[in-house]
């Protein structure tokens, strides 16, 4: 029997509001344990939550970018369960009336696009973090994270493979970064993905039994966990077994999922409307204000830049993957660099240097103007491509302008015909055997001779000029 997978994703995004969602504490959870806390986020007696408006603005922005309908009237609810990381033993969340509903996002699958439905996006608060010391047999709770603003984004069960899940997360992260609402750092938990996975025979309408996978710390982990679960389900069913509905954790070291003991063992959360908060009322004017403040989103930018700069779909895709890279690119072109060459240098040499140094483009010491200048030096024939590669490495290292590096290191290309001719004559005289081979028709020896001349000039000869002069000298000597 052939099976197809049905996957839905739940992503928790920590929104980068300066303060927590229901109190004035800083949302910086990197600070020393329990330093960014107050009576409200500690759940002291008598405190009341007050909703952070910045969180509403950013959530509406995400909702609009995900093509959701923004609820004119939504409310917050209490989700009740006991756990030591819960300051109040209830979490303020949104139950039946989320802020954003019924949207979609387009994902890219090797050049094909697919639409994934977004069921809802709702506001909630993060919990504290428990840590356990084995030595002291003690548990500690750090409440810095308690009350940090979370947006939970839930998809329809539209995802059909691990690859599509990966593409969804990539597209979502890209969108969130364009909106500048989260740092989307999965390792630090500012983006947490859970997948609901089931399989069913191809053609069957009804869903199979699902399992939920949590505790995944990277996109590739999500990919592997989903692949693993799909295979596990199929194997179970084929061997006559049954999938048990449960929550499983991803064990990255062993590359398997394992059943997880749920911290909230009782599943009855006894949701009811949060009486300490008033409803969230986003009127048309408010929604419009946010809509107008939205930046150019990835899909729009991709298509505009493709047309405007004559980029291939692939190039446009890569360059717009991050807003910073796209901004960088547009600055290089703005100061006069050729669009295609700028794309090649950005995606090629510069990206390689950034990856090797594990740097972001925003930290890059090569300014867009300097990259444009480098491309200009090649275009004018002042340097050749090989020299340019050395120069950009130096620029990357030191932040110097390419003209200065050329000057300091005497790297100017040799364009003096007489000087190159002298070297050619010397190389031909030193390699009579190869000259003979060339004359007897071995064309590929020409490359060897070019290399010898280039080496003798320490790579500074203008390659086109060198080619011309070498051919001319070889035929002149023959005659």
């Amino acid at each position: 029997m052939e099976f197809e997978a049905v996957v839905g994703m739940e992503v928790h995004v920590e929104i980068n509001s300066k303060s927590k969602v229901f109190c004035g504490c800083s949302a910086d959870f990197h600070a020393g344990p329990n330093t960014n806390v107050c009576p409200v986020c500690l759940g002291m007696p008598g405190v009341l939550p007050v909703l952070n408006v910045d969180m509403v603005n950013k959530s509406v922005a995400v909702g609009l970018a995900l093509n959701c309908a923004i609820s004119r009237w939504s409310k917050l609810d209490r989700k009740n369960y006991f756990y030591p990381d819960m300051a109040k033993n209830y979490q303020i969340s949104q139950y039946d009336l989320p802020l954003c509903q019924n949207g979609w996002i387009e994902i890219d699958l090797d050049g094909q696009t697919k639409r994934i439905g977004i069921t809802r996006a709702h506001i909630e608060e993060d919990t504290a973090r428990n840590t356990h010391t084995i030595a002291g047999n003690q548990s500690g709770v750090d409440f810095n994270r308690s009350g940090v603003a979370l947006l939970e984004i839930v998809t329809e069960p539209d995802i059909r493979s691990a690859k599509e899940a990966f593409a969804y997360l990539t597209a979502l992260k890209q969108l969130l970064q364009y909106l500048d609402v989260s740092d989307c750092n999965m390792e630090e938990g500012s983006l947490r993905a859970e997948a609901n996975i089931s399989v069913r025979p191809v053609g069957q309408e009804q869903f199979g039994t699902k399992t939920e996978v949590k505790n995944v710390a990277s996109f590739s982990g999500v990919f592997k966990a989903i692949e693993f679960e799909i295979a596990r389900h199929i194997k179970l069913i084929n061997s006559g077994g049954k999938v048990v509905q449960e929550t499983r954790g991803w064990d990255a070291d062993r590359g398997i999922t394992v059943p997880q003991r749920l911290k909230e063992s009782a599943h009855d959360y006894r949701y009811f409307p949060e009486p300490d908060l008033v409803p969230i009322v986003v009127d048309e004017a408010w929604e419009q204000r946010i809509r107008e403040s939205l930046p150019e989103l990835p899909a729009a930018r991709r298509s505009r830049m493709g047309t405007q700069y004559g980029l291939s779909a692939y190039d446009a895709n890569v360059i717009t993957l991050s807003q910073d890279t796209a901004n960088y690119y547009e600055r290089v072109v703005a100061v006069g660099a050729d669009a295609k060459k700028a794309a090649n240098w950005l995606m090629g040499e510069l990206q390689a240097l950034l990856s090797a140094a594990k740097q972001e483009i925003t930290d890059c010491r090569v300014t867009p103007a300097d990259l444009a200048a480098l491309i200009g030096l090649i275009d004018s024939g002042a340097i050749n491509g090989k020299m340019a590669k050395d120069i950009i490495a130096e620029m990357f290292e030191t932040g110097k302008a390419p003209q200065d590096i050329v000057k300091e290191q005497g790297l100017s290309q040799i364009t003096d015909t007489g000087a190159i001719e002298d070297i050619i004559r010397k190389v031909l005289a030193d390699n009579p055997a190869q000259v003979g081979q060339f004359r007897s028709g071995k064309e590929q020896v020409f490359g060897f001779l070019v290399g010898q001349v280039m080496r003798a000039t320490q790579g500074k000869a203008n390659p086109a000029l060198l080619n011309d002069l070498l051919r001319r000298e070889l035929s002149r000597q023959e005659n």
Partner: protein
Amino acid sequence: MTTPLYKKTVREIRDAVRSGALTAVEVTEAHLARIADVDPKVDAFTQIWTDEALAQAAAVDAKVKQGIDPGPLAGVPVGVKELICTRTGKTTCASKILENFRSPYDATIIQKLDAAGAVFLGKVNMDEFAMGSSTERSTIKTTKNPWNLKCVPGGSSGGSAAAISADECAIALGSDTGGSIRQPAALCGCVGIKPTYGRVSRFGLVAFASSLDQIGPLTKNVEDAALSLNTLCGRDPRDATSADLPVPDFTKALTGDVKGLRIGLPKEYFTEALNAEMREKVEAAVDVFKSGGAEIVPVSLPHTDYAIATYYIICTAEASANLARFDGVRYGYRNPAAKTVEEMYVLSKSEAFGPEVRRRIMLGTYVLSSGYYDAYYLKAQKVRRLIKKDFDDAFEKCDFVMGPTSPIPTFEFGAKTENPLEMYLADIYTISVNLATLPGISIPCGLTASGLPAGLQLIGRPFGEETLLRAAHCYEQTSGTTLGDPPIA
């Protein structure tokens, strides 16, 4: 013979202190002496902050001396209910689970009163977590009714009412979720007002039922209530449910007449459930208003019978979540025998919550459970809207609604503790007001044959406190039914 200092009203104290005729320290000392004298019998105070109070009073006097405005409540001695958070002393909610709890912050109203020059004498008793109508549910002590020491002071703000009645302070802060200010005020013969939901910040009030709770003052007379509200009311950015409305000078409403006011008498409040003597008192009060030129209109609140059931679903549901935080993790009682997280919860809560609190947490958990939510919680919310609509309809015909505060006068200790349902009936006339988020005031309207106070309740439109104060004040000035002093030494 001059009036003893402890008998002075808020108005008298603050005028004398501001003018320099009396010092705040003198006033404070007089009240501390009064507490030392009568509180061993009444047991209203749970904590007495002698040093802090005298220091606060001295600071007020220093301001007066330097010509700095000492505030509109300069030198006025205040008793604070045990569930209002104060950095001074403990905030126990009269529960074992918080028996040693010290709040790291002051409630908004504590900050406001402090800024207004009030002096905090200490804290006063209540039913554990405000769940009760007799203050017998306190785990700290048993507060007595100054009118009869064998009887309860009402509740849950029983300590507040007894302290005012026994002249131990001039303002006592109470909180009212279903009648907890008005019912003890009625039983102890003082004035108690529950403002409109949202009038007074709840920040720092330990929550019992968030959609019903409201803080208010208990005082010796109506003018003092108005002066208290001037300081207590107003929008608080820390309470999202507090109303963004201007706060009037409530004393300006005290015109001394009721001419032209239309008073609605709901027929549902005058049934057999109402004790005959109480009925007589209320009817006599109606006559006073009539002769003052008010118009009496019969009105109906048809959903009155559903109020108790509705109330006990909503308040217990909210309480079950509000009290979940008392888990022994961050503060409060933790059972030392607990070996696991679950044991910590179960043992700590079972041991440190009293029986009424446990009963309500379980009730509330039940009505929110899946499968029961629609039948109980959701239905109760619908009935709550109907009860509110009853009042909206009544206010088409009248300016405020009037009736008894409590169906019965105070009762002896233990008379109703065995039967929670009977205790719940003590609040039949008050809980609708919380469900409908309206303001309500209770004022004394005479003594029964056995010398126990009766209370008259006035219920107003949302944010209609001024009308209530005006009418209550006029009654107080013209009825000639002053209770005199309770029979304690």
